[in-house]
């Protein structure tokens, strides 16, 4: 038998007899078009490409930036704005400066939002929840923020299982004594943040 009849995983030997075999040439591996950062894991039948088991994003850089003045005043049903992307390890589609929506691909996620919007008087409060705009669904717990800066930190938390990509936002539920957009100042950019964990 000549070596020219031999193939290994579809790869023929060169004239020195060396076979260059890649991971994807193995019979139980499917890894033909990997992206940087992907790992290989067993899916019950084959070894296949997948994302890391946990990925993370943090939006909110603490920058001193005045709240955007375009759009609707903060009130029930209005999406709250956040500023800056510190780290985007989940592949979210999001603006680099002010944004009030972003898009996540299919997957399972836990989401946390802390808003820093400001009030015009002591006792003022804004409550908020995560909103799946694609599926028009409010999800998770209600966070809130008040007049004093030490009130920035009560989070809205949600778990989302997305079967396809979705546009998400942080929806104002109630608002009392909230500042106008022009008087919001920097607090939302300096103290507000979003964290996203992709679980699978």
């Amino acid at each position, binding site marked *: 038998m000549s070596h020219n009849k031999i193939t290994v995983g579809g790869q023929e030997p060169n004239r020195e*007899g060396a076979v260059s075999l890649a*991971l994807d040439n193995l019979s139980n591996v499917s890894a033909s078009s990997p992206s940087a950062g992907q*790992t290989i894991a067993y899916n019950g039948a084959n070894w296949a490409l997948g994302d*890391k088991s*946990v990925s993370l994003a943090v939006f909110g850089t603490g*920058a001193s930036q005045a709240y955007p003045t375009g759009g609707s005043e903060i009130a029930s049903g209005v999406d709250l704005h956040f500023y800056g992307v510190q*780290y985007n390890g989940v592949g979210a589609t999001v603006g680099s400066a002010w944004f009030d929506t972003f898009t996540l691909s299919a997957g399972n996620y836990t989401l946390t939002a802390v808003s820093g919007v400001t009030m015009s008087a002591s006792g003022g409060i804004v409550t908020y929840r995560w909103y799946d705009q694609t599926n028009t669904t409010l999800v998770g717990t209600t966070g809130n923020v008040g007049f004093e800066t030490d009130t920035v930190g009560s989070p809205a938390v949600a778990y989302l299982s997305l079967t396809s990509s979705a546009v998400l936002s942080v929806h104002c539920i109630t608002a009392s004594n909230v500042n106008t957009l022009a008087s919001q100042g920097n607090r939302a950019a300096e*103290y507000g943040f979003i964290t996203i964990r992709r679980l699978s």
Partner: protein
Amino acid sequence: MSVNNIKIGTSSADRTGAINPALSDLSDISSTAPSTGQVLSYDGSDFEPVSLVDSNSLRGNSGNNTSESNVTLAIPNAYTAGYKSYFWEYAAVQIGGVARFIIGSNSDASALNNVYGSTLWTCGLTLVTAGVYLITAHLAIGGLSASGSYIDVQWTDASYNSLGPRCRIGKRDERRNTVIGVVEATANQNIGLYMHSLSGAKYNQTDYTNIFINVERIS
């Protein structure tokens, strides 16, 4: 040429013609030696062994009580120099040679301290292993601070580049907030809590059960 001349990577056929290639014989596997528990991840050109993601390490928790401090914090910290003069000294690791703040043992990170003779105040972390980290800190200013006192801090690197949002931190028995940061760290990178502003905040040198810092390596 016979079948016995065929090689896959560095593995040749034995005298029966059998070839037993290892993973490292494949053309797109990195030559980096793996460690126990690592997985294969694509780096853009090869699959290379990397550590499992989501590794957690607790960095500090309760310590021994001592007397409260009546010293008010200042920006910058007059007791030290360089970049650490803007990092908040949030706990005393050691006072007069006596251990106070317990630092968890982990190869990923260690405490970044200011040394004053036999007294050590911690003001940040040294991330020993390169990688992406999520830092979550639950802290408090000193118990002798007046009600409503606060310090506004933000995780930054030694050049004061932002690692996340700011956070207002008060006394342990008042409203509690969590300061988060994420850093794509190089090996032995120092980070700390940059002091933006404060009002009446005093050093915290007791009741460290109210301090918790989690260092989580994501990748």
